[in-house]
């Protein structure tokens, strides 16, 4: 597969007459290598569906149509991307200090649950107060949930990947237990759910669209996270601690605090996503919160190479793939799992393409000539 990728990458730059001044070699590589990997995975996927005697061209056609073919499908894509930009940060931020957290699902669920509690408690407050309180509850709950993972890692040496995974299951159990017990709205007859946060307290849509404000909030948070990591001392320290813990310790960086902070912020982002899901989509907490956005967020973070800015386009890409799944299923008879297969193929190809970074001569010379 490596050869295929290596072969695909030069194919992307058949006309490199005048490399743009803005597009330096390193940046071109950062763009072209993943693009090439996506092209390869789409090709593989085409071959895969061809085995089921389905015309790959029709598949690509429906995917374009379902993801960007109309104003409806563009909105469909964006609305599916909205939660992912935030849950991806739950993996991407702790990754800066070298932690591998897969607990976004749990942080999303506890964030949504606590936001619903805040919303129900403030049913008669002004909408802005209620919304801010819900956001704060989601941020605090999700943040503390993942900060716990960081704390266990730093003070007890508990592997963060495993503990964050286990905490996902625990968060889901807590959610189910509460919405079928103490926090159940007695009127939620056949679908156990918490009381509603009230129609008037919903986070509305961007005017003229069907996309809720959560997408905008998510993008703003991603930009802030990028600034934090790339343009502040804390971010710099975090990246040093992640890149070389020994050196970080020698220069006296507060590793424990950096771990706690990035974990808190990552969890807070996922918790905020949960709060937005309640405030913009679901209105009340129920098992519907267990939607897998936390797990897809891991995928987004890795495809974006843990870069908060890159998270946004990657989330939109994945949103587009899932938005097109319905058309593929209804018109070509492709199983619903086809979109998961494609996501998996893209993921594998992009990861494998990591290996070509800095190895292709053209990028190297461009970089050297900078």
């Amino acid at each position, binding site marked *: 597969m490596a050869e295929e990728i290596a072969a695909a990458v030069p194919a992307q730059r058949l006309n490199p007459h005048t490399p743009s001044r803005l597009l330096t070699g390193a940046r071109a590589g950062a763009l072209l290598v993943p693009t090439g990997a996506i092209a390869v995975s789409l090709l593989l996927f085409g071959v895969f569906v061809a085995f089921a005697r389905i015309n790959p061209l029709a598949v690509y056609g429906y995917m374009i149509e379902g993801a960007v073919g109309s104003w409806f499908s563009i909105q469909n894509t964006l609305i599916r991307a909205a939660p992912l930009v935030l849950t991806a940060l739950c993996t991407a931020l702790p990754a800066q200090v070298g932690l591998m957290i897969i607990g976004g699902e749990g942080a999303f669920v506890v964030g949504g649950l606590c936001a619903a509690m805040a919303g129900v408690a403030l049913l008669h407050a002004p909408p802005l107060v209620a919304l801010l309180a819900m956001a704060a509850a989601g941020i605090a709950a999700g943040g503390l949930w993942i900060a716990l993972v960081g704390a266990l890692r730093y003070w*007890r040496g508990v592997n963060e990947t*495993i503990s964050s995974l286990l905490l996902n299951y625990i968060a889901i159990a807590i959610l189910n237990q509460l919405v079928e017990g103490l926090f159940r709205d007695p009127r939620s007859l056949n679908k156990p759910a918490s009381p509603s946060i009230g129609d008037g307290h919903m986070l509305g849509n961007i005017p003229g669209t069907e996309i809720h404000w959560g997408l905008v909030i998510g993008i703003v948070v991603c930009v802030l996270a990028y600034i934090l990591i790339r343009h502040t001392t804390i971010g710099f320290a975090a990246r040093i601690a992640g890149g070389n813990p020994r050196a970080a310790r020698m220069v006296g960086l507060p590793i424990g605090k950096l771990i706690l902070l990035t974990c808190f912020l990552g969890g807070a982002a996922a918790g905020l996503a949960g709060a937005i899901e309640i405030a913009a989509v679901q209105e009340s907490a129920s098992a519907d919160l267990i939607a897998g956005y936390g797990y897809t967020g891991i995928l987004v973070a890795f495809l974006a190479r843990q870069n908060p800015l890159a998270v946004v386009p990657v989330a939109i890409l994945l949103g587009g793939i899932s938005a097109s799944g319905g058309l593929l299923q209804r018109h070509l008879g492709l199983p619903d799992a086809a979109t998961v*297969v494609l996501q998996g193929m893209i993921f594998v190809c992009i*990861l494998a393409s*990591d290996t070509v970074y800095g190895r292709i001569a053209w990028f190297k010379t461009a970089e050297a000539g900078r």
Partner: protein
Amino acid sequence: MIGESIGLWSVPLAVLGGAIRVSTPFLFVSLGECITEKGGRINLGLEGTLVMGAMSGYAVAYLSGSPWLGVAAAGIVGALMGLLHGTICSLPRVNDIAVGIALMLLGVGLADYLGKPFIQPAAPQLPAIDFAWWSTSSQLREALQIPGLFLIGAALAPLLWWALRATRWGLILRMVGESTDAARALGYPVIAVRIIATCVGGFLAGIGGSFLSLYYPGAWSERISSGQGITAVALVIFARWNPEACFYASLLFGGAGALGPSLQSVGVHAGYYLLNAAPYILTLLIMIVTCSPKRTLIGAPAELSITR
């Protein structure tokens, strides 16, 4: 088969039976992951391998009529998934944890995609061996209906423990896992050893998957695994990379999983979600108690990305 009620005694019996029934997939996946990790790689993709094993095992058992052919097919498919993981991770600058997550996704997606035609048909099931023929208690007899695969796994654990310690192969594997440089200096093909270790790990995880669809619960469905594969990877760390400890950890986890329903059946109804989450809570607590930041985990391969 149906006997008299034995009341509260059924809880420990159910936990014992559950430990045997539920633990087998955990056991195979964790033994496989143990081998992979001893070589210095971590394969989080075993969840995908497990589900692929469950699907392909069921499909082949149904098409061929032989459950054991299904088990073999599941193992081969698992080994191929391991080969994919091992090969991609051998490329420079590729992160094995991330590839694992990718293959988890790909494996589950492929299994659901390819498994559609096998949701309905009933495949022949693996036999069990009756270890309580002497007893008249139907509950005890059920608890001691021991599936052949469980016995194989139970025998494999000490064998592996011994092989890792005492055989030349075990030594090479552990050396590769401890120090790439040392292994290279001695002329061992580090990459090849790791790929083989990942293949073997995938093989065992695939077999673990076939147990799900061919013995317990004994059907192919898209919800067949509720995270057993990824949890089993957690068990390896919990078991300190010791195959024998993997065996006990799997039993503990399987038993804890059976606790929730059996308590309900004797009248304890409060908090069944939390009771169902007992295995996860238990694992987390044990990890918190037994881990320490002061020292590297005993038994942890030094080249493993999660312990570095």
